[in-house]
């Protein structure tokens, strides 16, 4: 088993854009989208976000598990939330909710307001995920450091992120080797049963060697960085990312989205919307 990043190569339209534009897009979007509360607004946004997602040409096969997971889990959470709150959070007042039916044991009420909130929440999450996937699938792992640097995050954090990316495949090989070595001694990685505490303790034969081994190996990495002059002072980056016209268009579009979402929010124009189809006649 070897951990590999989700990156798909430079084949897609988004993968050919400057990675900074994708990062900025996702960043602006997670600030903008939560400001929208009206399910109709979020429907439009989700459709646009899925259009953007399509530009990353991610094969369905590679993301279907994520999508399935997302829809199932987020919907479940939203539904439980709606039951707990009875649709009374998020700006709907509690005075005259439309109770559709109650679920027997505790008398939890399923309301039209609650269902509307479920739809709103799921739409927002679908939109955020759609803008998020391209960050994983269309940015080369090696471009993370340079992109963060060129976004103005200095030198040390980008180098640290680059180093993280660099370690992951190596550590995953060491992890596999450790599992093999312990299996020879009768360790069963798939063993079930026991409480959570017992299960955690059983993992020590894997966690300890991999963690401690990578920490002792770090001495060589530290030396190798110090010996090549890493540290304080001016630093240059050879890899230069370039914003092409389309990259600016991407950034511009997401800036515009943030501005509009903020305006709608501040002007009070995007409040939770009771979906008429849920309201009993």
């Amino acid at each position: 088993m070897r951990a590999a990043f989700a990156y798909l190569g430079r084949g897609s339209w988004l993968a050919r854009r400057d990675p900074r534009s994708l990062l900025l897009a996702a960043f602006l979007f997670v600030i903008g989208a939560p400001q929208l509360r009206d399910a109709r607004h979020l429907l439009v946004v989700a459709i646009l976000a899925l259009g953007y997602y399509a530009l990353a040409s991610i094969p369905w096969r590679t993301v279907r598990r994520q999508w399935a997971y997302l829809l199932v889990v987020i919907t479940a959470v939203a539904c439980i939330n709606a039951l707990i709150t009875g649709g009374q959070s998020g700006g709907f007042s509690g005075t005259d909710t439309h109770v559709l039916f109650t679920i027997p044991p505790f008398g939890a009420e399923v309301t039209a307001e609650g269902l509307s909130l479920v739809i709103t929440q799921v739409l927002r999450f679908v939109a955020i995920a759609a803008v998020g996937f391209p960050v994983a699938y269309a940015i080369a792992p090696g471009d993370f450091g340079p992109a963060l640097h060129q976004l103005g995050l200095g030198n040390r954090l980008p180098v640290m992120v680059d180093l993280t990316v660099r370690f992951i495949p190596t550590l995953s090989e060491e992890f596999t080797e450790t599992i093999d070595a312990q299996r020879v001694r009768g360790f069963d990685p798939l063993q079930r049963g026991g409480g959570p505490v017992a299960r955690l303790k059983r993992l020590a034969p894997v966690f300890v060697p991999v963690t401690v081994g990578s920490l002792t190996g770090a001495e060589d990495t530290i030396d190798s960085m110090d010996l090549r002059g890493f540290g304080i002072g001016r630093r240059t980056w050879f890899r230069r990312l370039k914003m092409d016209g389309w990259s600016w268009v991407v950034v511009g579009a997401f800036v515009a989205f943030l501005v509009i979402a903020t305006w709608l929010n501040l002007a009070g124009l995007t409040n939770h919307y009771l979906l008429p189809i849920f309201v009993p006649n």
Partner: protein
Amino acid sequence: MTNPTTDPVVVVEGLSFRYRRGIEPALRDIALEIQPGEVLLVAGPSGCGKSTLIRALNGLIPHSYSGELTGSVRVGGLDTRATTLKGLATVVGTVIQEPTRQLVASTVPAELTFGPENLGVEHEEIGRRLVAVAAASGLEPLLGRTTDELSGGEAQQIAIGGALMLRPRLLVLDEPLANLDPASASRLLALVRRLADEGTAVVLVEHRIEDVLEARPERALYMEDGAIRYLGSMAGFLETADPTRVKLPFDAWLRRARAGAAPSASSDSDADVVANGQAPRIEWRGVDAGYDDRTVLHEISAALGAHERVAVLGPNGSGKTTLFKSAIGLRPLTAGDVLVDGATIAGRGVAELATTFGYVFQNPSQMLFAATVREELLFGPRNLLRDPDGFDGLVATSLTRVGLDEEPEVGERPPRTLSHGQQKRLAIAVALALEPRTLVLDEPSAGQDYRSATAFMREVERIAGLESIYFVTHDVDLALTTADRIILLKDGRIAADGTPHEVVQDRDRWRACNLRETSLMEANRQHGVRGSRFLGPEALAAQLSHQAH
């Protein structure tokens, strides 16, 4: 004013150093000058201070390792004590022992440019250097790769390239050949020679002298216990060095034997003759095996006897490790079957198979996790629900069999605080705690010096109660002098299988498997007895000098 082409690059005077946690000094009164364009070979047994000397040359001592330092080190005219590591980075380039740990970027170009970037070199200049270094070191084919896909040899080349990007006047290499197959090693040594011819001074630490002769070092420095024992011409070194301490060409043994040096007590050929026609312990029958996306082993058929010593040799990535992992159930078979003691392994647990043949992984630290050596030893027996009443005896015998019982209170020590050599022994004791009759060792000699590697194998051979030993190695001489039978693996297929004499017959095949033709092998081929096993250098030299009389 210093003149970079004629003045010495390194001037060391009265250098002594004791690590903060060290009791004894690791370097004692070292005096040394190195000229531009010179390759200096530094050799000596494990722990003699080679790596410490390198740290003193590149400034890690005193800037990163604290301790007691006396004397002075000047590199390129700069006093290492008064200059920062950043200041020294443009003068000394270093490649440390472990190739994969020193790569810090995820792509090859980023790795190469890391140094100049840290020093704030301008974009255009870095680009020029990148082109020049890649061309000079033959790295162009690697420029599109990510660092995790590199083989050991390629990683080593990139590490050197990364050091060269800073245009150092001195390049220090700490055991660059460890884990490299001969083809990769030759390429690397040719590069070293060329750099020296262009004016760089090179310090090359290596105890396998025979292997580095290709770089034609001008001088050799031999150390013991932190002090210089020999510093002078390479020819003089080959004349006088002690072949039991460093790995020298066979000539050196012969010369010593002819000079009448008494053979040491440990003779290395206490071979017990193999019983033929025995039942096999492990038998592969038309086995294919591999990883999710690719088959590594193809149609493997072989039977290893219950009373044999078998060595498996082959290039990096040829499937040596996978071969034994398939037999112990760690890699599923995609075709064929493996029989252990005549019964199929299908449906048998990994650990249960390990009670028949113990498997020792290359890197012991990848499995040591327990708080004490005792707990570490008992992990396997506990998992197999062995009777706890026998545990005290089991711990004691396992430690005795690997010679760890001499260490005081060893049972209560945290395993990882043992020395590297002791950890290797502990790994064997861990395998022995399941009371197997056969031991499989993956690269037992990796990371050890010549003397400890040979001595280690001799100790393993003498472990009481073991019927057979199978091992994987890159060390040709170790394989030829230890095994009764050699299996050559190439591209996942068995390329040859027979006694050492049979297998080395076909020179083309030998070279095609990326194996070195060593002087010992040559001497055995010419003068050796057509027995099953090759003679060790000492025995063969003794025999030859005897015949001469």
